[in-house]
Structure formats: C-alpha cells, structure tokens
C-alpha cells in the first residue's frame, strides 16, 4: 500500500488549488458550509467508486472506447448518488440543486479516472480517490466558510436536536459583505487564496 497516493491529493496535488480541477462546482456551491459538506460527500462517493470500477476494468476496456465507457460508469454513479440523496437526505439534495447532477462533468472525476485509475491497481486508485476527495473537501469547505462568514455572517451546518444548524457571527450577521455571497466574491476569494498559497510555496522553495 502506497500511503503517498492518499496524502498527495490533500496538499501537494490538491485538486482545487494546485491542479485547478472542478472549479465550477467549487465556485457555485461555496455559498454555505453545509452545501460544501454535502457536495464533498457526493464527490467522495462518486470518485471512490469510479476509480475502483475503472481500475478494476482497466484491462477490459480498450483505449479507443475508454471515454464513453468512463462517462457511462461516472454518470451511473452520479445518478445513484442523486437518487439516494433525494430519498434519504432530502435537505442536502435540495441544497445542492443543479450541482449534484453536474458531478458527471466535474473534471476531478474524469481527470483521476483518465490520469490515475486507468493505469494503477484498485487499491492505489481507491487511495488516490480518497486523498483527492479529502483535498477537494478541505478546499471547498475553506472557501465556503470564508464566503459564508463574510457574505452572510453565518456558518450553516446541519440541524441536530435543539441546534438549528446555523451559527451567527456577531456584527457580520447584521453587516455582511454581500459581494462575497455572489459570483464575483467567489472569483475574488479564489484568486486571493491561490495567490497566497503560491506565495507560501515560493517562500518555502526559497
């Protein structure tokens, strides 16, 4: 078992900030922390199973038809995720809206199938999927946390018992920077975070 396959997706090859994959859903659903967690769970399920299935079938699927075969596998997994969430987690399903079916065209899924799962063992592909999904989840949750705190003055989680699921941030809840909740705010934040991480990486490299 190669543990590097698991850890590389978290920092060194982070899908959002380093490889820059799957940015459309990252910018789209990062308005609330609960959306980010729900989307991350969906991506983890689809990425894990698509990597496992594609790796297991890598000697069975010829190169010339691998793209349609991968798309059928990924689309089926996304539809299964969508139906399961609709039935058993309706609040998360409603929150994710159109972004859930759009996991089909999330570049991370097809990108990892093409670049990794089609050339590696099932175990390594599963580790790669888990690492990439954790990296995606951390990045998406960080962006959603900053956007929601600044843009709405709240942190929306999931209601449990008497806890409504919404934490209000004093002052910001009455004076939010509304631009952060809108599309320009997502692009601005993504740019600033990417610049900050690149600056940190350059300093480390000397």
């Amino acid at each position, binding site marked *: 078992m190669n543990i590097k396959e698991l850890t590389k997706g978290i920092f060194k090859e982070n899908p959002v900030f380093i490889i820059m994959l799957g940015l459309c859903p990252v910018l789209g659903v990062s308005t609330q922390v609960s959306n980010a967690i729900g989307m991350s769970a969906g991506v983890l399920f689809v990425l894990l199973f698509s990597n496992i299935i594609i790796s297991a079938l890598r000697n069975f*699927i010829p190169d010339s038809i691998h793209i349609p075969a991968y798309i059928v*596998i990924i689309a089926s997994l996304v539809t299964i995720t969508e139906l399961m969430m609709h039935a058993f987690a309706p609040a998360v399903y409603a929150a994710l*809206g159109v972004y859930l079916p759009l996991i089909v065209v999330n570049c991370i899924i097809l990108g990892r199938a093409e670049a990794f799962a089609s050339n590696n063992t099932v175990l390594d592909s599963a580790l790669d999927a888990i690492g990439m999904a954790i990296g995606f989840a951390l990045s998406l949750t960080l962006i959603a946390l900053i956007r929601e705190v600044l843009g709405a003055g709240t942190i929306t989680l999931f209601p449990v018992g008497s806890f409504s699921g919404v934490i209000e941030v004093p002052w910001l809840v009455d004076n939010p920077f509304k631009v952060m909740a809108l599309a320009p705010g997502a692009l601005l934040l993504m740019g600033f975070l990417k610049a900050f991480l690149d600056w940190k990486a350059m300093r480390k490299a000397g």
Partner: protein
Amino acid sequence: MKKNLKYSLILLSICAISTALLALTNAITAPVIERQGQASRLAGLEAVSMGYEAGAQKVVTDDPAVTFMIELKDDRRTAGYILGLKGAGYGGEMTLVASYNTAGEILRVQLLSHNETPGLGKKAENEGYMDKFEGTGAAQAVPTNKSMLNSEDAAAVSGSTVTFVAIGKALEAGSRYVIRLGGKR
C-alpha cells in the same frame, strides 16, 4: 469489423450493468421520494389554506401558469381559492401553491419545488421571502420587477432577479385567474 463488434459488445455490457444498477436504485428510492413529495405538497396546502375548509382539487388546463385549483369555503360561502402555479426560474420549472381571496388578493404563498442556484435564487425558500407578494393582486399590483419593490425588498432579491420575476409572474397569473372566476367555481 470483428474489432468494432467486440467494442460494441463491451460498451453494451457496461451499459446493461449500469442500467440494472440504476433500475435497482430507482426501485428502492422511488417510493420514498414519492412519499416525500406528497408530504411536502400536503404541508404546502395546509400552510396556505388560512384555516378555511378546502374543497376537492380540480385540474386546470385553460391557463398555462395554473395547474390546479381548490375552493376555500367559510361556512358554505366561497372565501377564496388555492392555486397550484408554475413559473420558469433560472434553474428550470418552479412550482408553488398560493391562496387568494375572491378579489384575487394573495393571502399566502408557499414554494413547493425548484432548482434554483444555492445562495442566489434559492433565497426564495427563506422565511419572509414571500411577504412582499402577500396582500397584492387586487388593489395593489403583484410585484413582477425590482422597481416595484421598496429598497429593502429589492436588496433581498439582489442576485436572484430571474427567480423573483418568475414567482411574481406566476402569482400575477394566478390573481388574474381568480378574478376571471369571479367568486364562482
């Protein structure tokens, strides 16, 4: 030729297995989703009935925005109507139920289903979002563009203009439909 046939059979087998898995998932989830839809619809109808006695549901086919109608009765007298409405939001069709008095004034509105963008059009789910429509439709026109709102309400729909207009137009069509009924079924 032989190679093409082999490729076709491989793709066919992948598609067949995928279809079987999807059919199985659908068989498990469809009844649960159906029950949720009915519960949500019933809750929506109850929320807009204003305590009046609701009659039988009638399918409406002569208005593109109205899908069904339920008469509301207050001691045998027609007090108003609940209408099932649909509008074209940013993410596709939105469905809502609204109650009207016999003059076409909107009493209560409840959003049933939509596919609007989280953080933008999805704000229509928020408590108080429909307040700006309630009480309009008779003496006061139903707001269908932002210039008809006060500055606070206009700021609340900022970033979700398409959703707001879709709801406003559907409710306005409902109001016109009730006025056409003229207090009769």
